[in-house]
């Protein structure tokens, strides 16, 4: 491109772009990541705020809840049985080496309820529900449907994203209950039937080590993970780069980013919980 050619009578002399073109602002490394993080946080805050704004989209919430639940229930149950089993086997064999077989039950159940269950739930919600939400929003974005909605004075965050995020949170809570039960039952089965543990020892060590707050933190984790999965999916879906390919990339990124955040947040929540709540028998 050459210097701009002056069009006679075209209003004021065009202010010279070369001055700016010659010195393009070089972005400071890292600002991109910070900006993305900031936008993600803004979306999270907006979503929380719009949750309490009328009119509430009940119909959309029910539809999304049903959708997310239908794609996650079966895989969650199927994953949680072997997961409970593998923890039971691992903890069982370790406990045997240490000569503490009687605590196998409590240890494996705590591992399932506090750690495995919320993570399984969140991974499945992000992988099955979140990816679908991200793809749906992304394709609506590139078809300008979301712009059209905004132009009609309807906030896409309030209309579409709030119900979706609430749906992932609710499904996470309920699914967490399911996975905890199925995982514990699977652990019991493998410990008692396969490893020939004693049912009584399994159950008594459970009541000796576990307490109700363990279940609370499990559900709290599930809610927070569900929120993260929903928000990240919505955020990536709202900002696809380019056309249909961008939507595919966005879905991919949303799942990866959710996984990264989940494990990070899990460490923080676990550390806080173990600090704040005195463990039984400790």
């Amino acid at each position: 491109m050459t210097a701009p050619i002056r069009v006679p009578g075209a209003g004021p002399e065009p202010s010279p772009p070369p001055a700016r073109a010659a010195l393009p602002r070089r972005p400071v490394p890292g600002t991109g990541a910070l900006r993305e993080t900031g936008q993600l946080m803004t979306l999270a805050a907006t979503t929380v705020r719009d949750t309490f704004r009328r009119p509430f989209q009940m119909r959309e919430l029910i539809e999304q809840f049903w959708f997310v639940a239908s794609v996650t229930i079966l895989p969650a149950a199927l994953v949680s049985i072997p997961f409970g089993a593998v923890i039971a086997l691992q903890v069982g064999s370790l406990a045997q080496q240490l000569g503490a077989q009687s605590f196998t039950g409590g240890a494996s159940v705590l591992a399932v309820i506090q750690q495995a269950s919320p993570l399984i739930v969140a991974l499945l919600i992000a992988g099955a529900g979140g990816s679908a939400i991200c793809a749906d929003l992304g394709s609506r974005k590139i078809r300008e449907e979301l712009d059209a909605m905004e132009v009609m004075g309807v906030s896409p965050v309030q209309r579409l994203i709030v119900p979706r995020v609430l749906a992932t949170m609710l499904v996470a809570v309920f699914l967490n209950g399911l996975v905890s039960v199925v995982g514990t039952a699977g652990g019991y089965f493998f410990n008692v039937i396969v490893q020939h543990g004693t049912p009584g020892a399994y159950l008594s060590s459970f009541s000796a080590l576990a307490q109700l707050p363990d279940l609370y933190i499990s559900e709290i984790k599930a809610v927070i993970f569900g929120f993260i999965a929903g928000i990240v999916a919505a955020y990536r879906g709202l900002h696809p780069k380019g056309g249909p390919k961008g939507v595919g990339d966005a879905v991919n990124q949303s799942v990866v980013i959710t996984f990264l955040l989940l494990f990070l947040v899990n460490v923080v929540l676990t550390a806080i919980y173990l600090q704040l709540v005195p463990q039984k028998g400790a």
Partner: protein
Amino acid sequence: MGIEVIVEGLTKSFGTQTVWQDVTLTLPPGEVSVMLGPSGTGKTVFLKSVIGLLKPERGRVLVGGVDMVNSPERDIYEARKLFGLMFQDGALFGSLNLFDNIAFPLREHTRKKESEIRRIVMERVEMVGLLGAEGKLPGEISGGMRKRAGLARALVLDPQIILCDEPDSGLDPVRTSFISQLLIDLNAQIDATMLIVTHNLDIAATVPDNMGMLFRRELVAFGPRELLLTSDEPVVRQFLSGRKDGPIGMSEEKDEATLAREQVGGHSLPTAPRRVAPQLEPSPGLPPRQAVQRRRARVLAMWDQLPAATREAVQAGLVPAQGEPA
């Protein structure tokens, strides 16, 4: 009556690339304006900036006291209810059928009964000639039908300002003429301020009261239609005549070498005065457009600033309509 849209010093860039800068214009209330420009000069970006979908870096867009660029989000959402925007490809909701698509703004923003909604929607459906197709999904109809459905949806809330993004793209010439007539009829009926973004020369010549042109990152001109239709500016002339010779090239701008070669080659635009096509009239049976009288007063007020060719064209347009010399 429509609402005035005042654009002041608007500048928009993506990254380091400036789309356009210092765009200042006023869309007079109730009048039809057209924004022209070669492909890729940011016409759609301008439209989206007016309605607040994109945020320009500098300047403001005033609509009934709300600045669509800098005002709080809540005010902007409220002001958007005054607008109807027809997207380039309709931007219909893929999961809803045409009826539900067109009824969407009514269901979101009004507490009308379903029977009332049905009446309004079917009225608009008939207006854009889609009767019988209202049960179809957007994926099942042609691009032209999607576009008309998008227009119907933009109209259900009786907007004061109507923005059309390339109403002609994807339509055959006959349907384009119908759309042109439809836009003029609409203006006669609801007296809304209208801004049409297009590069269709027929629409540009016959529909608008005012014309503007974006080129090379700035607003080249904006004014009464006669001003641009008789303009001697090379860009405007080249564009309105659809020729190769002139400052507009295949890429966004011609480079200097090509331009110099053309000048040596002696290509120059004929300087004969061009005839200005008469503006479309509303269909018979509709009320006259109120904007015509207002525009007449406005143009006469700026009479001294208009070039001679423009004055002639204005006079030619006024004489048959008014029966008196301007």
